[in-house]
């Protein structure tokens, strides 16, 4: 199969692997902070952010889309939290109400302006990573300029760098907040700031992954590799490394799967991530059973 890889496939795999890595890194913090559901919610509501940003500015450029998505992402997090506090609703119920509303409005806008926006309902769901190589950026004009590669690749590349830099710079704080939220408070770390900072990273990752995997499949990449890592790791650093490793393995397995079955690449990547998680769980269950048997053997 490797011999059949063309330039387009290389771009697709490179983009997918950056999407998966960025999502895995951000996802680790979502899992540790028990905010898997807010990640789900944000990845749904960014659709509205993108559509609104496009309708308001009439531009399809990355900064505009990022800004729209981040604003809506933060709004989702803030509204869910406010509804939880002021309306005295359970927090998952508040999250559910906010994101379903935002997503519904997003879908309605997409079907209203379907002719004008280069978004359709399918792209909302599973993106179209196969088309990624055809939407490229030219430096210095379309005719004479040089093709520097797909737009989606550069988008997720930039976001990946931002995520990486944030984790490197804020490592100590993020670690304290993730494992000892109370200690973080007493140390004077601004927990609220870091909460919204994380939500910003989630929104950015989601929107940059939009072309590649769509809004909903990004949840799989946010939550599943990080969960696998959560089962195996015993430190934040290890968890981040394992999550990234799992995400890259999912990309490779998923791409081959899609190639063999002629199915959607991004869906196959997400499915592979799930299969890897279930294999990990099965292995751990077996290990647990073996340990139990050994214990029984020893005590007898």
């Amino acid at each position, binding site marked *: 199969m490797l011999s059949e890889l063309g330039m387009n496939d290389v771009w697709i795999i490179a983009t997918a692997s950056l999407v998966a890595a960025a999502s895995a890194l951000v996802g680790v913090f979502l*899992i540790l902070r*028990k*905010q*898997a*559901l807010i*990640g*789900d919610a944000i990845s*749904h509501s960014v659709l509205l952010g993108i559509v609104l940003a496009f309708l308001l500015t009439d531009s399809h450029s990355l900064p505009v889309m990022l800004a729209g998505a981040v604003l809506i992402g933060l709004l989702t997090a803030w509204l869910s939290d406010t*509804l939880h506090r*002021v*309306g*005295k*609703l*359970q927090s*998952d*119920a508040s*999250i*559910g*109400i906010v994101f*379903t*509303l935002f*997503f*519904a*409005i997003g*879908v*309605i806008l997409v*079907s*209203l302006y*379907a*002719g004008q926006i280069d978004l359709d*309902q*399918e792209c909302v*769901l*599973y993106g179209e990573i196969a088309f990624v190589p055809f939407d490229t950026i030219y430096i210095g004009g379309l005719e004479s300029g040089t093709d520097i590669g797909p737009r989606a690749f550069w988008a997720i590349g930039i976001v990946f760098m931002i995520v990486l830099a944030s984790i490197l710079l804020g490592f100590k704080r993020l670690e304290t907040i993730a494992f000892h939220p109370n200690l973080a408070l007493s140390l004077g770390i601004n927990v609220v700031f870091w909460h919204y900072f994380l939500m910003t990273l989630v929104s950015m990752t989601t929107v940059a992954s939009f072309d590649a995997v769509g809004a*909903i*499949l990004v*949840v*799989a990449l*946010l*939550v*599943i590799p990080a*969960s696998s890592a*959560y*089962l195996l790791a015993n430190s934040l650093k290890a968890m981040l490394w394992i999550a990234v490793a799992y995400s890259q393995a999912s990309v490779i397995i998923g791409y081959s*799967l*899609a190639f063999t*079955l*002629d*199915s*959607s690449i991004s*869906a*196959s990547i*997400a*499915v592979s*991530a*799930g299969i890897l*998680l279930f294999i990990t*769980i099965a292995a*751990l*269950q077996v290990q647990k059973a073996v340990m139990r048997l050994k214990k029984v053997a020893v005590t007898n």
Partner: protein
Amino acid sequence: MEAFTLLQPTSIWDNLLAFWRFEDMNVLWVLVGSILLGMSASVIGAFAFLRKRSLIGDALAHAALPGVMMAFLLFQTRDPLVMFLGAAGSSFIGFFLIDWLPKNTKIKPDAALAITLSFFFALGLMLLSYIQGLNVENKSGLDKILFGQAAAMTQDDIRLLGYVAITILITVALFFHKLRLIAFNRTYAITIGMAVNRYELLLALLIVMSVVVGLQLVGVVLMAAVLLTPIAAARFWSGELSHMLILSAILGALSAIISTQISYMAPAMPTGPWMVVSLSILFILSLLFAPQKGLLKRFLEHKLLRQKVAEENILRTLYKLVERNKVDQLDFNHSDIQALRSVPTEILQKTLKTLCRKQLIESSSKGFRLTKSGLDLATQLTRRHRLWENYLNEHAELTPEQVHNQAERIEHILTDSQEKQLQAELENADSDPHGNPIPSQATLTGGKS
């Protein structure tokens, strides 16, 4: 822009009329179907909400997708019953997984939900794209279940939906008392020997069924809202489960009517998102204006209480001033009051004015004095304040310095019977921890005399 041309102002009314005359029989079918779905999903969603699993509907709806695709792959038909069974089967596996993961691994419940949801959804999409690449008949329209399109439903679909919805409503009505007990007090239900597990399985089955039949109408992604939003809205109106269920069923039906009309008038508009938007609007209205627990009501109550506290504080300060002045002075001005209680002049003036209007105080050239009824109220408040201080001092072992602030809060809300009870429990009901006398009930002049 096609959607807009259908929404020309002149035709809206005609369109509405045409809708309600049911010139198109299919419209009637879809309307009845959506109302039944709206009602049954809201009722069953209520129990998920009460069990603090509001987003289970979201996960189950996503989990249904691979089942539908599998059923189609295996049987190559779009028969509603086959689709239904496939969806129900995979939803049920999803339900089991959400339950199993947190119990047997380190994974937390919220992550288990997100994992199940995204994995099954991805699996469903993978199968969908695989099917679309295959050369089989009947495959078009499978993707409709992602967003739901009521108009695409056949009469068979709607008939099945109707049966399921009615089954759900009847089952909930039959087992209402048991389900209520489990929802509110599971442990107690177990102790009295109820087969809790069996009822929970029943509930799971009903949730799965309503999610699965709702998919075609509302779509996978938004099904969660139909289960969750009505009960969340109903909760602001009443605390009684039966009322909440009836109300959320009404809200569900209402949103169904609104959304079917909208997508009838503009066929390009998907039904599901409009159902969610209308539900959300009903939710926001409930949140703000519900008479029992709405925000507006709470805001007004809070404001009234603050005003009451401000008035009562001034009254008690006046009482204290009278008490301290052994000379026969009864009139006090702003600065006298502010010397004892720090209160911004503006608020003080406003409060004094209200107190005058209520004839609890009267103003004279030298300042303000308590009227008879004002003195009564002030005495009673002082009595409650000091009794409570005393109580805290004797029974909660707080020092005299600590008790004052606590009592400041409680004096405004103590009732007569609580006051009597307090007095009965105190050894010393004559003076407070600071040494001030506690005015006895007898010193009250009784207002009218």
